[in-house]
């Protein structure tokens, strides 16, 4: 992504940083010209100290890799956090167009997922916070474990589609359960290409519901208690009470004109 010919790499040890650089730049370790910027001491990895090297590439070819100039290494940082929960873990990475998916491979006990994905959410949140702080400009970081997100995504997509079907069939607004920002994103992007409806988040706070609104139903008030039966009655009564109003105004005014 960067056109400069110098790239910084970080690892727990200098050897690890070199190996990382070699892999990212598609070169053999012996072919690299590098300079050590920082040497970690003992116990350094837990204190966030890392080996830092800067690599110069001879040819002008800009290597393609997803790290950026900030020197933040999401894989290493996530590994450090995950190892505090369970010492024997491995972080596998996988990239697509706009995401870098970091998978924590543990013992399959779901310890990194937690109830309703709470632990996974917390790990991802902290990792994103650190990434933000360290100036990460790369792809969106996704923390995954035991296909939890993948399964959850499939479930949410199915739910979005079935609510959309229902909204269109009944011509009524459908509302999801309380969802986190990432989950709402899945709903919205699933429905982006569906004709004849829009989706909108509803509420305040971290968790919100998503409304799925068929065309023509936008004007209606969101049913707060599902009280659809009232909607005619409510709309019909108001103008009448509104019409009564002016009468009171006219009476006091009338004497004035006679004066």
């Amino acid at each position, binding site marked *: 992504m960067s056109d400069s010919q110098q790239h910084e790499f970080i690892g727990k040890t200098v050897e690890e940083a070199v190996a990382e650089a070699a892999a990212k730049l598609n070169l053999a370790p012996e072919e690299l010209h590098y300079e050590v910027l920082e040497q970690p001491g003992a116990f350094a990895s837990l204190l966030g100290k890392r080996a830092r090297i800067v690599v110069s590439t001879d040819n002008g070819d800009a290597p393609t890799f997803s790290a950026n100039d900030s020197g933040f290494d999401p894989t290493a940082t996530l590994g450090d*956090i995950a190892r505090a929960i369970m010492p024997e873990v491995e972080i596998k990475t996988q990239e697509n167009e706009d995401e870098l998916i970091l998978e924590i491979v543990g013992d399959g006990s779901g310890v990194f997922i937690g109830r309703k994905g709470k632990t996974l959410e*917390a790990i991802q949140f902290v990792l994103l*916070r650190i990434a933000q702080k360290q100036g990460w400009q790369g792809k969106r970081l996704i923390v995954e474990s035991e296909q939890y997100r993948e399964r959850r995504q499939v479930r949410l997509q199915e739910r979005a589609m079935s609510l959309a079907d229902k909204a269109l069939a009944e011509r009524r607004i459908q509302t999801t359960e309380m969802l986190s920002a990432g989950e709402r994103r899945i709903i919205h992007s699933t429905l982006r290409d569906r004709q004849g409806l829009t989706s909108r988040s509803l509420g305040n706070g971290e968790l919100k519901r998503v409304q799925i609104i068929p065309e023509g139903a936008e004007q209606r008030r969101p049913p707060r208690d599902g009280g659809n039966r009232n909607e005619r009655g409510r709309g019909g009564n108001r103008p009448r009470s509104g019409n009564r109003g002016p009468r009171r105004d006219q009476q006091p005014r009338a004497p004035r004109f006679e004066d």
Partner: protein
Amino acid sequence: MRELIEYIAKALVDDPDNVVVNEVMGETTSVIELRVAKDDLGKVIGKNGRTARAMRTILSAASTKLRKRAVLEILE
């Protein structure tokens, strides 16, 4: 556990040299006390306490492995 909190806190604050973490061991519960520079307090707490909550969640995941409860306290 102490190291975990220290690692995360140091990575989040502007002033990592002023991050101090103590672990007060009890029989079944240990209390992890986190102190940071005044200006960094918001960074370890987060909007609506979200960062603090995330750290507590990670801490409790870590403590299930050790069969010991750990509580995070952020001290001013």
